């Protein structure tokens, strides 16, 4: 009894500090009539590789944009590292550089080079004068080159972004996010359009960095197979609702938070996607 009293407060605080993202009954709407997200509850531990799976239009991209303050909910609360994501929130603005965000379309600047696109990730660290005249400190340039070779783009630093292949473009977007020295990485279906082999190369790249830097990676997927392969936690979103959340350990599903499905059923639900 005594022991329990001793341990419970400390373990409680440990649990709360671990939560890097918490969403509580979050609703969003594009117009007054319909909701894109309907009462989403999500809590993500620091260092998790979290996957959000759902079909097009299920609201999964919206979830990411809520986490980096690009959108605000119409109802409910969101905390990212104890701050409410909103570009008008000064405290959040100061930590935005800690959140790497790769939209589905990647958001590269097509007329800038690979190196310049990567260096954009270091802009929050750069002074006003230096950024006006594109004067990047030597150590940032070296860092960018190091990251580029890590993602397999060594030697392509001076290429313009529009000249790159789909897989290479994704690597640049990842490099830009890594350049931010992030603690959270948000990626929106960045491997959906790639072939099986390239998709796994990109996923491995993120998985490696995620373990090395203790990143919290939150990745939206179209493909359940891919999510089960890489994530430790998978949430399934359908028509704006979280219908299922599972923990994954190796090829085993370890816990269910919502829903009542078997592994077989989960894969069957997404068999159409996996065959693609």
């Amino acid at each position, binding site marked *: 009894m005594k022991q329990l009293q001793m341990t419970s407060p400390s373990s409680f605080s440990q649990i709360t500090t671990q939560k890097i993202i918490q969403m509580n009954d979050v609703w969003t709407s594009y117009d007054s009539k319909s909701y894109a997200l309907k009462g989403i509850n999500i809590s993500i531990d620091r260092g998790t590789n979290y996957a959000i799976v759902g079909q097009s239009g299920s609201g999964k991209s919206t979830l990411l944009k809520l986490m980096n303050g690009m959108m605000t909910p119409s109802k409910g609360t969101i905390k990212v590292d104890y701050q409410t994501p909103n570009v008008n929130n000064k405290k959040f603005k100061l930590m935005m550089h800690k959140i790497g965000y790769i939209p589905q379309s990647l*958001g590269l600047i097509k007329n800038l080079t690979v190196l310049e696109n990567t260096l*954009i990730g270091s802009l929050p660290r750069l002074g006003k004068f230096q950024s006006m005249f594109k004067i990047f400190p030597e150590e940032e340039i070296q860092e960018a080159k190091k990251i580029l070779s890590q993602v397999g783009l060594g030697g392509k630093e001076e290429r313009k972004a529009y000249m790159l292949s789909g897989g290479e473009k994704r690597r640049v977007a990842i490099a830009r996010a890594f350049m931010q020295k992030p603690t959270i990485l948000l990626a929106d279906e960045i491997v959906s359009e790639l072939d099986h082999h390239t998709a796994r190369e990109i996923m491995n790249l993120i998985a490696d960095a995620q373990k090395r830097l203790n990143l919290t990676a939150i990745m939206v997927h179209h493909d359940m197979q891919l999510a089960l392969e890489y994530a430790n936690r998978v949430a399934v979103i359908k028509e704006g609702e979280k219908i299922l959340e599972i923990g994954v350990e190796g090829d085993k599903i370890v816990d269910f938070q919502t829903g009542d499905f078997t592994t077989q059923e989960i894969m069957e639900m997404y068999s159409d996607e996996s065959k693609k």
Partner: protein
Amino acid sequence: MNQRNNLVIGIIIALVVAASYNVDANPIDFFEGLPNLAIVAEEMTQVDAELFGTAFLSMFETIQMAFIGTIVGVAISLPLSMFAARNLNSKFVYAPVRAILAAVRTFPSILWAILFVIMVGLGPFAGVLAIIMYTVGFVAKLQYETIETIDADPMDAVSSIGVSKWQLIRYVVIPESAPHLLSQMLYMFDYNVRQTSILGLVGAGGIGFYIINYIKFFEYGKAAVFMIVVLVTVLIIDWISLKIRDKYIVKSQHGMEVTAK
């Protein structure tokens, strides 16, 4: 459906006829006047070749005026367009800037030229100022419209990093709109050369001064020399800007098929 279309076409034709009546636009006058044109055309064939030297010199002056006007005009319109873009500013910033630009655009360049002739006197400088004003009004509008159509994804992706607005402009807005700006500059230069050619009508320098004076004194053969020079120059500029466009703009717009050497 078809009947309604016919009705609309009928109404448009009726409006054209009514408006023509109001402005005395009579096709018969046009055909009766054709012989007059033939007289002018015949006189124009008697080209005074001795004037080609003067014509080239004044054309050179015109090109220089258009060049200064375009470059300075674009340089002024660039920051203005940043303030006029709706996706970068609040209403309180873009609305007044847009109103000013709209006011600037209301005046055709020839009216600006008259105004500046009064201000700085006869000569090319008044023409240059007129071209600058005209360029600012137009390029700023074209440019803010371009900025507003920039893909929202790079803007979102980069602003989500937490960069300042000036960094966003420097690293997203300018590079993303640069090919359009180049294209607009070429278009504007091309247009300004033609415009500057007539600014001479109000004494604001350039080749137009000669054209209007020779026409006034019915020396169509001499005027023709200058008109030929304008024609050739405009064709050459057209050709050059086409080449530049092909090289720098088309490539980056449809860059997907371009592979590195």
